[in-house]
């Protein structure tokens, strides 16, 4: 790019420079030649005029010492030649009354002789009545012509020197113009090589600075995208790893017990016990499958929005909770600050969300003096639902992983099996909250309790 620009600009420069130099030199030459011609013509006229006057006087006086008139004239011209020799002028006269060839055209021209250099020749007949005489005037213009040549050469050399100077200047100017581009090129190469954190320092306010700003924005965008893709891939991998482990454990039991039943001689007690394990683990796998299916259905799901009365919702949730854990001593409180409070959403999803959160709270609580509070508070354009418990709380470290599929706070699989949970509850809750464009935040303190806040922004 830089080299192309350099060549193009430089060629254009040379074209303009040398055409101007040629034009100037042609003009100078022409005007000089014209001048020389005019001068010679003028001189010729003057000489011819004087000569013809002299001849007329000679003719009138009959004053010539030569056998013929013609020779007398030639003699006269010789004396002229002596006079003009210091001006480098040579005159020749020819009498065409006595010459047996036709006189040449009268003309004015330059000619070049190897021994005498450049001369300007003027030929013309003398004025009447002496027009049988042709006067030839020859002036040595070598010095003038050489002077012209020298001028031309000086012009040419100057132009060449200037072109070299211009080439160097152009190179440096282009380098400084292209420097930011080189910086951008270097940065993009590094980004292409995987260093997505690379940025360009923006200088000035010209177009290139704008390009740099845009470039930086693009790089930032790419970096963010890559980061989010990596994050997503990591989450997926995590999910697959967790899932594999989650499936392998029940399968180990199921296969093991089936193999045992297949190969050993069993008592009735053995059969019942083994089959019960197989059934338990199968049920657990079924729960996992159901939850996963539910999660998959909720991906990009458009909930069927209806207006739900908070009072009715709380009533339903309370009923379900009492039905599922009739003997629990954990106290459940439902509070709604305004009987007209409503939220917009798909009723069964919202109910399942609240039930999930209540069940989680129930698991966290001390069975003897646990308290769970479910609140609805009207805000300006939204309703805030809060589920608070006074249970064991969640540590800072766990709080970050709590939405990961199959992540469990209670690591004991025996209790998990007994509770029927598969470790997807909060993941499901998050999905439900997301499809409703609501926001969920969890705050917790170890041994003090946990509070889950959901703000439904839909009016």
């Amino acid at each position: 790019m830089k080299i192309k620009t350099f060549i193009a600009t430089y060629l254009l420069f040379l074209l303009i420079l040398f055409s101007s130099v040629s034009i100037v030199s042609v003009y100078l030459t022409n005007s000089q030649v014209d001048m020389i011609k005019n001068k010679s013509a003028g001189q010729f006229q003057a000489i011819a005029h004087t000569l013809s006057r002299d001849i007329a006087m000679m003719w009138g006086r009959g004053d010539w010492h030569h056998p013929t008139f013609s020779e007398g004239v030639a003699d006269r011209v010789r004396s002229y030649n002596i006079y003009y020799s210091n001006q480098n002028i040579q005159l020749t006269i020819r009498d065409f009354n006595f010459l047996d060839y036709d006189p040449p055209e009268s003309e004015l021209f330059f000619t070049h002789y190897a021994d005498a250099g450049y001369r300007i020749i003027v030929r013309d007949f003398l004025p009447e009545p002496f027009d049988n005489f042709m006067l030839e005037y020859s002036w040595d213009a070598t010095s003038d012509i050489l002077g012209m040549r020298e001028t031309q050469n000086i012009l040419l050399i100057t132009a060449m020197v200037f072109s070299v100077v211009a080439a160097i200047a152009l190179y440096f100017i282009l380098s400084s113009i292209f420097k930011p581009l080189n910086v951008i090129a270097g940065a993009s190469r590094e980004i292409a090589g995987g260093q997505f954190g690379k940025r360009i320092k923006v200088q000035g306010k010209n177009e290139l600075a704008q390009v740099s700003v845009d470039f930086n924005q693009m790089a930032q965008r790419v970096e963010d995208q890559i980061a989010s893709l990596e994050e997503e891939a990591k989450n997926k991998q995590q999910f697959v790893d967790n899932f594999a482990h989650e499936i392998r454990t029940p399968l180990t039991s199921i296969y093991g017990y089936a193999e045992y039943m297949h190969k050993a001689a069993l008592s009735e007690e053995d059969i019942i016990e083994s089959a019960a394990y197989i059934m338990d683990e199968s049920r657990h796998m079924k729960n996992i499958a159901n939850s996963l299916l539910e999660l998959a259905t909720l991906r990009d799901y458009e909930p069927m929005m209806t207006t739900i009365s908070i009072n009715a919702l709380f009533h339903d949730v309370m009923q379900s909770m009492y039905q599922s854990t009739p003997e629990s001593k954990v106290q459940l409180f439902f509070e709604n600050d305004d009987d007209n409070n409503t939220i917009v959403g798909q009723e069964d999803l919202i109910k399942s969300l609240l039930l999930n959160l209540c069940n989680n709270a129930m698991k966290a609580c001390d069975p003897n003096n646990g308290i769970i509070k479910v609140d609805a508070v009207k805000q300006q354009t939204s309703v805030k639902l809060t589920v608070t418990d006074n249970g064991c709380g969640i540590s800072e470290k766990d709080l970050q992983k709590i939405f990961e599929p199959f992540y469990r706070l209670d690591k004991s699989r025996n209790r998990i099996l007994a509770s029927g949970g598969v470790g997807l509850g909060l993941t499901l809750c998050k999905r439900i909250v997301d499809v409703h464009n609501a926001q969920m935040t969890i705050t917790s303190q170890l041994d003090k309790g946990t509070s889950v806040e959901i703000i439904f922004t839909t009016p």
Partner: protein
Amino acid sequence: MAKILIAEDEHAINTLIKKNLTLVGHSCVCVFDGEAVFDALEAHSFDLILLDIMMPKMDGFQVLEALIERIPVIFLTARSAIDDRVKGLRLGADDYIVKPFDMLELQARIETVLRRFNKADTTFTLADVKIDMAGQQVFKGESFVELSPKEFLLIETFVKNRNIALSRDKLLEMVWGYDFYGDTRTVDVHVHSLRKKLGWEHMIKTVYKTGYRLEVAKHED
């Protein structure tokens, strides 16, 4: 018969291992977390510990590091990463079994470790038949029973995997080896001859659609 401690937090797996080991005559104690291992060690002495790695309170690695007595230990875990295996073996474990495991594989590995520590049975008695594993001799009553090497291997396999149904294919593999091109009828012929020589017509049962099983009354401790 060996006395084995099973430390595994999952009830289903723990019970499964116990059932399997009891079949072949071992006696087992089950604990469900790392700390309970030491309580059990105080109460009994064991020939072998089957140790899960991911357990509450103390994980398997910690248990192994804290063990003072030199008891053979086999790790039994879902963690299949090479690093975990190497770490387990470096810490002094005698074997490392990755879940899910095969019943016969588990038996075989336990048997191997026990033999290494000279804790495996060298004799086995059933009814009036006495088998001397080390001497490779079998007596019925007082009289020596003449067995071919393959027949002895077969009876040994049955004894070690007693109460477990062994398919004909599995028996071919265990007794004759992978590269044996024979028919499964070879197994039938040998089993028939064993039954006759030892008078075990009712001990070696034919299991429907499977193979054979040596049935011995379970020891109850």
